[in-house]
C-alpha cells in the first residue's frame, strides 16, 4: 500500500517535471541561451552555438544571443561533404573586435589562406574567441564544438587566465569548482533542465545582492575610477601610464600568493591536457598556438620585486645600482645606463625583473644595437611562465605547437614587434593576425590535413594573399592605438587631434581608453586648462557617489589594485 503510494508520488513528480520542462521549451521560458550566463562560461554554461532555422528552412548553428563576448556566427548543422571545418578557440585576440568590418581576425585570414592550400575541400573557419575568456571557458567551447563535426581545432590560449585569481568572481568560482569536482559534474548536466534553472533563479533571488564597484579587473577602469573620485591634479591622467617609466619596481611581497599562481598554472595545464584528450578521442587534430605579445609595451610588465628575490638580502646595493642606471638613462647616457642596469641582474637569485629588461632594451635601441635590444625586449615574453606551460602541455600530449613569433620578428621594424603590430599590449593588428594565420597554414601543410594540398607556387595562393592584403589595407587603425603611438613619440598635439575627432559624448561614455589617453596628452601641455576642463566633464559623466574607488596612493597600491597584483607576469 505504502509502496504503491510512493510510486504514485514519484510518478506525479516526474509528470510535473516533464510537463514543466516541455511547456518551458515550447513557450521559450527560461531559455538559457537568452538569459545572462550565471556561470560566466564555466561548466554548466549554455551552448555557444544554438540551433536555429535559416531563411531557406535548413538548420544552422547560430551564436547564442547571450554570448555577446563572442563574434556572431552562423554555419550549417549538417556539414556539407567537401567542407573543411575549423574552430579557432581562444580569447579576445581571436575575437579581434577592433577589426570586425572587414573581418581581419586571424581565423578569417586563415580561412582565406586555407582556400589557397586545399585543393578539394572548402574551408570554413569559425571564430570561437570570446573576450576575457581563459582555459576554463575555452575547454567548454571545445567540449561543445567537438559535436559540430570539426576537422581541426586551433587553440590560442591567452591572458584570460588572469581572471581566474580570487577575489575576482571567476577566480572564486574556479577555486570552488576545483575544490568540488562533483558540483561541476552535476551542474554540467542539471543546468540543461529548465526546471533546475527556475529553482536556481528563485534561490538566487533569496541570496543577498553582491556589492558592486569594489572590484576592478582592468587597470584602465581602476585608474578612471580613482581619478574621478578625487580633485584634478597634474598627475591625474599621467601617473598610471608613466608609473613604470624609468623607475625601479616596488619592493614588496608577491601580491598573489605563490600557491595561488601554482594552482592556476596546474589548472591551465590540466585544461589544455583535457582539450587534447577530448580531441584525440574524437579523432580531431588539434593545435596549440603560442599567443603573441607586444614586446614594446611596458604597461603590464611586472613592477614589483619580492625581497626574497634579492641575493643575500642586499636591498640597499640593489636599489643603488638600479637608481644609478636609471639616472644615466634619464640623462641619455645610454651605454653607461645599459651596462649599469645589466649589473642589477647580479643582485637577483633568479632574474625575473621584466621592467629591467625593458629599460635595458630601450637603452640598446637608442644605441642602435637592435639585435641586443630585440633580445631584451623579447625576454619577458619568451620567459613568461605561460609560454613554457603551453610548450610543456603540447609536448606531453603530443599536440603540435604553432609559434608565430619568429615570423613576426622577421616583419617587425628592427626585429622588435611593437605598437605598429599590436593595438595595445596583446591584441594583434591585421598584419600580425596574418602572421598567425600563415603559421597555422604551415602546420596544416606539414601535417597533411585537409586532403590534397596545392604547392606554395600555385596561383591560388597569390589570389589568397591579394585578398588578405586587401583586408589589411582596408582595416582602419584603432584610434586608441594612433593616440598612444603619438604620445610615445612625443607628438601630444597629434594625440589630442585624434582624441578630439571622437564625438565627446561617445568618448566620455563609451571610450574609456581614448578618454584617458586624451587626458594624458592634454596633461603634457604646460597649460593644464584643457586637461582640467576635460577632467571635469569626465568626472560629471563617470562619477557615481556609490562607487568605491580603489586605493592607488603608492606604487604598491598601484601594483595591487590597478595591475591586479601584477597578474600579467604569471598569466
Amino acid at each position: 500500500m505504502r509502496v504503491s503510494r510512493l510510486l504514485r508520488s514519484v510518478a506525479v513528480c516526474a509528470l510535473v517535471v516533464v510537463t514543466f520542462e516541455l511547456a518551458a521549451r515550447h513557450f521559450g521560458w527560461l531559455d538559457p541561451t537568452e538569459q545572462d550566463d550565471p556561470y560566466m562560461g564555466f561548466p554548466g554554461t549554455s551552448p555557444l552555438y544554438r540551433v536555429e532555422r535559416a531563411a531557406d528552412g535548413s538548420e544552422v548553428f547560430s551564436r547564442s544571443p547571450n554570448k555577446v563576448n563572442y563574434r556572431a556566427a552562423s554555419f550549417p548543422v549538417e556539414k556539407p561533404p567537401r567542407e573543411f571545418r575549423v574552430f579557432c578557440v581562444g580569447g579576445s585576440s581571436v575575437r579581434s573586435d577592433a577589426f570586425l568590418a572587414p573581418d581581419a581576425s586571424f581565423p578569417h585570414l586563415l580561412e582565406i589562406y586555407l582556400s589557397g592550400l586545399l585543393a578539394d575541400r572548402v574551408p570554413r573557419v569559425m571564430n570561437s574567441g570570446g573576450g576575457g575568456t581563459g582555459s576554463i571557458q575555452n575547454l567548454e567551447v571545445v567540449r561543445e564544438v567537438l559535436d559540430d563535426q570539426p576537422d581541426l581545432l586551433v587553440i590560442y590560449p591567452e591572458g584570460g587566465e588572469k581572471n581566474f585569481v580570487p577575489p575576482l568572481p571567476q577566480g572564486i568560482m574556479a577555486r570552488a569548482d576545483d575544490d568540488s569536482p562533483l558540483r561541476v559534474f552535476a551542474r554540467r548536466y542539471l543546468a540543461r533542465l529548465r526546471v533546475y534553472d527556475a529553482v536556481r533563479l528563485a534561490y538566487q533571488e533569496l541570496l543577498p545582492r553582491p556589492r558592486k564597484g569594489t572590484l576592478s579587473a582592468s587597470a584602465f577602469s581602476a585608474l578612471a575610477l580613482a581619478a574621478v573620485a578625487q580633485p584634478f591634479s597634474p598627475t591625474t591622467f599621467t601617473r598610471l601610464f608613466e608609473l613604470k617609466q624609468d623607475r625601479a619596481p616596488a619592493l614588496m611581497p608577491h601580491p598573489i600568493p605563490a600557491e595561488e599562481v601554482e594552482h592556476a598554472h596546474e589548472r591551465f595545464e590540466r585544461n589544455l591536457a583535457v582539450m587534447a584528450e577530448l580531441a584525440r578521442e574524437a579523432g580531431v587534430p588539434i593545435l596549440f598556438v603560442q599567443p603573441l605579445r607586444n614586446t614594446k609595451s611596458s604597461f603590464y610588465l611586472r613592477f614589483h620585486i619580492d625581497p626574497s628575490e634579492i641575493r643575500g638580502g642586499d636591498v640597499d646595493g640593489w636599489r643603488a645600482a638600479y637608481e644609478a642606471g636609471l639616472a644615466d638613462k634619464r640623462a641619455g647616457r645610454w651605454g653607461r645606463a645599459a651596462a649599469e642596469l645589466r649589473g642589477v641582474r647580479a643582485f637577483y637569485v633568479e632574474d625575473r625583473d621584466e621592467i629591467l629588461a625593458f629599460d635595458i632594451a630601450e637603452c640598446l635601441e637608442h644605441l642602435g644595437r637592435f639585435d641586443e635590444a630585440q633580445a631584451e625586449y623579447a625576454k619577458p615574453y619568451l620567459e613568461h611562465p605561460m609560454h613554457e606551460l603551453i610548450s610543456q602541455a603540447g609536448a606531453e600530449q603530443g599536440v603540435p605547437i604553432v609559434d608565430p613569433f619568429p615570423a613576426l620578428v622577421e616583419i617587425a621594424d628592427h626585429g622588435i614587434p611593437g605598437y605598429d603590430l599590436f593595438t595595445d599590449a596583446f591584441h594583434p593588428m591585421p598584419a600580425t593576425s596574418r602572421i598567425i594565420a600563415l603559421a597555422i597554414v604551415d602546420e596544416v601543410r606539414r601535417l597533411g590535413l585537409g586532403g590534397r594540398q596545392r604547392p606554395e607556387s600555385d596561383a591560388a595562393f597569390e589570389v589568397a594573399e591579394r585578398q588578405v592584403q586587401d583586408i589589411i589595407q582596408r582595416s582602419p587603425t584603432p584610434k586608441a592605438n594612433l593616440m598612444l603611438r603619438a604620445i610615445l613619440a612625443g607628438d601630444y598635439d597629434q594625440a589630442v587631434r585624434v582624441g578630439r575627432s571622437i564625438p565627446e559624448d561617445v568618448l566620455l561614455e563609451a571610450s574609456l581608453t581614448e578618454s584617458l589617453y586624451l587626458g594624458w596628452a592634454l596633461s603634457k601641455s604646460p597649460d593644464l586648462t584643457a586637461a582640467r576642463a576635460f577632467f571635469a566633464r569626465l568626472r560629471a559623466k563617470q562619477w557615481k557617489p556609490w562607487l568605491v574607488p580603489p586605493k592607488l596612493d603608492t606604487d604598491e597600491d598601484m601594483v595591487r589594485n590597478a595591475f591586479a597584483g601584477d597578474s600579467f607576469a604569471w598569466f
Partner: protein
Amino acid sequence: MTDAQPSPSPPPTPPGAAPRPKRRWLRGLLREVLLPTAVLVGLLAIAVALIEGPPLQQFLYAIF
C-alpha cells in the same frame, strides 16, 4: 458488554440549510499532487543550494 458503540454520526443538517460539500477531492489533490510536488521542489532547492551555494562545510560553519 462487548457490544460495539455506534460510531458517532455527523450531526444532522438542520432543516433548510445547504448540504455540507464533500472535500475528499481536495484532500486527494493535496495528498497526491501538491504534497509530492512540494517535496520535489524542496529536494530541488537543496540540490541547487548544494551545487550553486557555498561549499557545504562553509555553509555548516556559518550556521553552527
